[in-house]
């Protein structure tokens, strides 16, 4: 296991951060804007989000680089800005953390599908290598490959991230199938656990897709399938439209009530995904303190 992960596990459970997208929207990220580009155009507002989580007590914060791969940026005519956007993203989070939190840089999916021949494995590997080395060069403490729906793409991204020598977390979205415990591509937690471990992931887990209740059975299955530490970042429920506004129904306290069940099933790293904010981090910390 990577020495940094080993060190972190001594203080487990470790509190990570909450959503970035939701927070950036609150700060004026408008429709159609590329969130990752804000690292260059609006670094102060991105820093506010990072600082929000550092101040709430996140031990690990991520970066605003989820979509900063050449495929996603290419749709915003910014494919050539991969290095600059990722570098700025790490710098912003590092500045905000100021040594109080570690910065694990985010790598999200390419938005292309291997299974339909949309993209080749080789070009995905190249894109993720480009992003991972930019994140590493800018001084990230680790890399989180997250929100992956296809295990094959996740494995390619994990290998690219591992090549930097940084610790790598690999997190999938389980929201499909009869029991909502498969990825969109039908991959089971057991299959993902095996494939991600083989690719060299230092920790594996789940994020996005469903609310925290739905994470408990997935966490249990992953725990039974692997000896690796588990990373969990659920949504604050599923988004609903109320009078034209998007609302996530699960509040921070309700969210935190399910934290003990995740801890009992082996979760080591805990935070939130879509719809969560600083108050969720505060409540997660409170729930963990209550358990200790």
């Amino acid at each position, binding site marked *: 296991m990577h020495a940094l992960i080993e060190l972190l596990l001594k203080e487990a459970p470790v509190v990570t951060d909450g959503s970035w997208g939701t927070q950036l929207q609150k700060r004026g990220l408008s429709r159609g804007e590329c969130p990752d580009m804000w690292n260059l155009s609006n670094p102060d507002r991105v820093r506010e989000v990072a600082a929000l989580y550092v101040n709430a007590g996140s031990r690990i914060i991520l970066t605003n680089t989820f979509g900063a791969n050449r495929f996603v940026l290419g749709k915003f005519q910014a494919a050539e800005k991969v290095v600059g956007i990722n570098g700025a993203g790490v710098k912003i989070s590092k500045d905000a953390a100021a040594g109080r939190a570690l910065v694990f840089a985010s790598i999200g999916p390419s938005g292309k599908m291997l299974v339909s021949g949309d993209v080749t494995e080789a070009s995905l590997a190249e894109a993720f290598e480009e992003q991972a080395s930019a994140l590493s060069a800018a001084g990230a403490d680790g890399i989180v490959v997250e929100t992956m729906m296809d295990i094959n793409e996740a494995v390619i991204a994990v290998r690219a991230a591992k090549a930097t020598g940084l610790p790598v977390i690999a997190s999938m979205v389980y929201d499909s199938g009869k*029991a909502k415990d498969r990825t969109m591509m039908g991959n089971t937690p057991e299959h993902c656990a095996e494939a991600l471990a083989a690719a060299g992931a230092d920790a594996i887990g789940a994020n996005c897709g469903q609310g925290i209740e739905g994470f408990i059975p997935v966490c249990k299955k992953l725990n039974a399938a692997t000896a690796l530490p588990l990373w969990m970042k659920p949504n604050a429920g599923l988004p609903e439209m109320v009078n034209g506004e998007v609302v996530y129904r699960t509040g921070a306290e309700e969210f935190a009530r399910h934290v003990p069940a995740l801890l009992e099933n082996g979760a080591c790293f805990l935070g939130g995904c879509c719809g969560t904010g600083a108050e969720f981090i505060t409540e997660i910390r409170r729930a963990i303190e209550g358990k200790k």
Partner: protein
Amino acid sequence: MSAEILNELRSAIVEMRFDDTEGLARRALEAGVQAVDVLNDACLPALDEVGVLFREGDYFLPDVLMSVKAYDSAYRLLLPGLKEGAYESRGRVMLGTVEGDIHEIGKNILHALLQGNGFDVVDLGVNVSPAVFLEKAKEHKPDIIGMSALLTTTMPVMKETIELFAKEGLKDSFRFIVGGSPLNQRFSDEIGADGYGEDAQSGVELVRRLLAS
């Protein structure tokens, strides 16, 4: 004999045996079955079955794509015969991910399923503005216009698009359907769409229902 071949072809599509489907379609034609009957009695029922398996959570996206691929090998063989015969498309659907949104996976799945179900599909891609929807609708004259959004921030573009059609007096010339993970029926009703599909398969069923009515 021919019933047996058609049955075998149907199973081959459902079971994703894409190496077998072309040969089975050829055998059916050689046995004297009309191309249109091969399509209607074997291929389309097979895709319907695949759709149900997908909706029920027994099949996942890769399974659907493989089945559509298996269907496609048979369909390409049938195509010349369909052009001569009395085959009509089930209808034309125009799809696009709305302006500001670049997420295309959901839309692409619906595209594949609709094609597999015998619909003509005009795909406008991603980041499609209300004006482009309007312009392309005038050009392609689809029966149905489908809008997709993954981002909660881009959902309002669906409303703006429908309003633009209304302003031009064209709202009733087309049927509008919407889909995407943050949507629901209430939103669809609020913006005056004709229907909402919770996932790609319900999208296909919605299209069928609207065109039957």
